[in-house]
């Protein structure tokens, strides 16, 4: 028997002993809730075991997560969308109402998407995609231009007020000036039609600094988010599973 297999068996045995003790001592209830906590704790440890190295426990937990996640989405979509919007609307409409035939055209285009599974007839799905792309673009383009481009440009070129109506210096005006300089320098950096020489080179260098600071802020937030996820799991293990009280 290989060393890694023995180590894995020891870990499983340790996990089992801890859980038997927790249940026997009355720390965990011997019911479905207690079983749920034990399963959740085991899967959490299995996922974090990847930090040591890739292993079968991690892969099992990962596949289980993906499978359950997908199954949940399918069931939710069926009961929240397909059943009430399609099946009930067509075959069991409310008393006194006739079946909603308006459901048939979208249902038809939806079913066509499944032709992707049959290479010979995959081309039929293009009708549905054409419909989605056309409708999606028509809906998205004017709204995106208005909300994401025009509103941002408007906010950037708004007159800067250095003093408030009562005469106090407005420190936010400095932030606006920095934002304007940042937008200009970054735009210059991404302007590739002219070679970046002389003053243009210096401006684009400032643009790179703005980009780096933005990436740094985004990465800092990412680290914070990931640490938060870890803390939540650790606190689950400490409080819900092991019942170690916080002081």
């Amino acid at each position, binding site marked *: 028997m290989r060393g890694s297999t023995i180590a894995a068996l020891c870990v499983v045995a340790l996990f089992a002993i801890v859980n038997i003790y927790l249940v026997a001592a009355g720390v965990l209830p011997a019911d479905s809730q207690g079983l749920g906590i034990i399963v959740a704790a085991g899967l959490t440890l299995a996922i974090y075991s990847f*930090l040591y190295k890739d292993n079968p426990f991690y892969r099992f937990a990962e596949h289980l997560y993906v499978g359950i996640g997908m199954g949940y989405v399918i069931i939710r979509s069926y009961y*929240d969308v397909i059943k009430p919007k399609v099946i009930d609307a067509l075959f069991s409409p409310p008393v006194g109402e006739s079946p909603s035939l308006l459901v048939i055209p979208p249902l038809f285009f939806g079913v066509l998407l499944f032709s992707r599974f049959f290479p010979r007839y995959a081309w039929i799905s293009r009708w549905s995609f054409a419909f989605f792309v056309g409708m999606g673009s028509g*809906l998205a383009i004017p*709204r995106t231009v208005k*909300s994401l481009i025009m*509103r941002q440009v408007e*906010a950037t070129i708004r007159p800067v007020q250095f003093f408030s109506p009562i005469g106090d210096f407005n420190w936010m005006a400095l932030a606006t000036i920095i*934002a304007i300089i940042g937008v200009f320098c970054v735009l210059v950096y991404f302007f590739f039609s002219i070679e970046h020489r002389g003053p243009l080179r210096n401006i684009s260098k400032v643009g790179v600094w703005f980009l780096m600071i933005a990436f740094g*802020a985004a990465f800092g937030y990412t680290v914070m988010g990931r640490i938060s996820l870890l803390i939540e799991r650790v606190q689950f293990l400490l409080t819900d599973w092991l019942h170690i009280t916080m*002081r």
Partner: protein
Amino acid sequence: MSVLEKMMNIDRRIIFIFVAAAIVIPSIVRLNLPIKPSPMVVAYYNAIESLPPGSVVLVSSDYDPGSKAELLPMTLATFRHCFSRDLKVIGMGLWPQGIDLTYKALRQAAKEYGKKEGEDFVMCGYKAGAAFVIVGLGQDLPGTLEKDVRGRDLKSLPLFRKHNIRSLRDIPLVVSMSAGNPGIDTWIVYGRDQFGFRMIGGCTGVMAPDFYPYLNTGQLEGLLGAAKGAADYETLIKRPGLACRMMDPQTVAHLVIIVFIIIGNIALLSSAIRRRRKA
């Protein structure tokens, strides 16, 4: 090999042990570090405070259990704040996976404040279609959401009958708890800028910097970014909860990471200087 060179080749598992210790120890022994709310969290709080009692708030749960640690505390705190101000809440979601978590939080907050389902709050569940759902809500809100999670016709519920809610134009404030797309930006592009309601949101740390430009334009009035934003908000509503408990280990873990970044950079610079001297 010098100490600094050894530091550059340190086994990543040693760093993991330090980070784990930085999280486990402050989770057991509280440090009670101070929490100072940031301006965008204060703006989020003020947006809800500014609504007169009885106003209707629509909360969209646009996340999944993977983001529970960051978004559930702020969702629960938002419901508590709304109910403490006697606001009505309509819950819904553009993501299928987060609905049960949000509904549980909604019922928990409602129970704490003695609110009744159908009268003070309603959960409409997951609605497929993202942008199309928002456009539909702008035209006919009860017609798009149709029923609550208990299968009751929305038009028959006291909350809808009393407040005569027909579209998003009748909703003074929309809150999106967002972990991706569809989320805050979808609500802004297809809803807020089209139908003119006020909007605030909560998001994961990864996404927060993407939403800062919306604060500058006023498209978003306030933002809760990650667990820190949630902790700030819990402090403001004077109901410290899940997020506040996370702040001590969060701070210590950040300090450990900062120390490792500084050590790594010193080691990198010193080895570069040494190589230059040798050359």
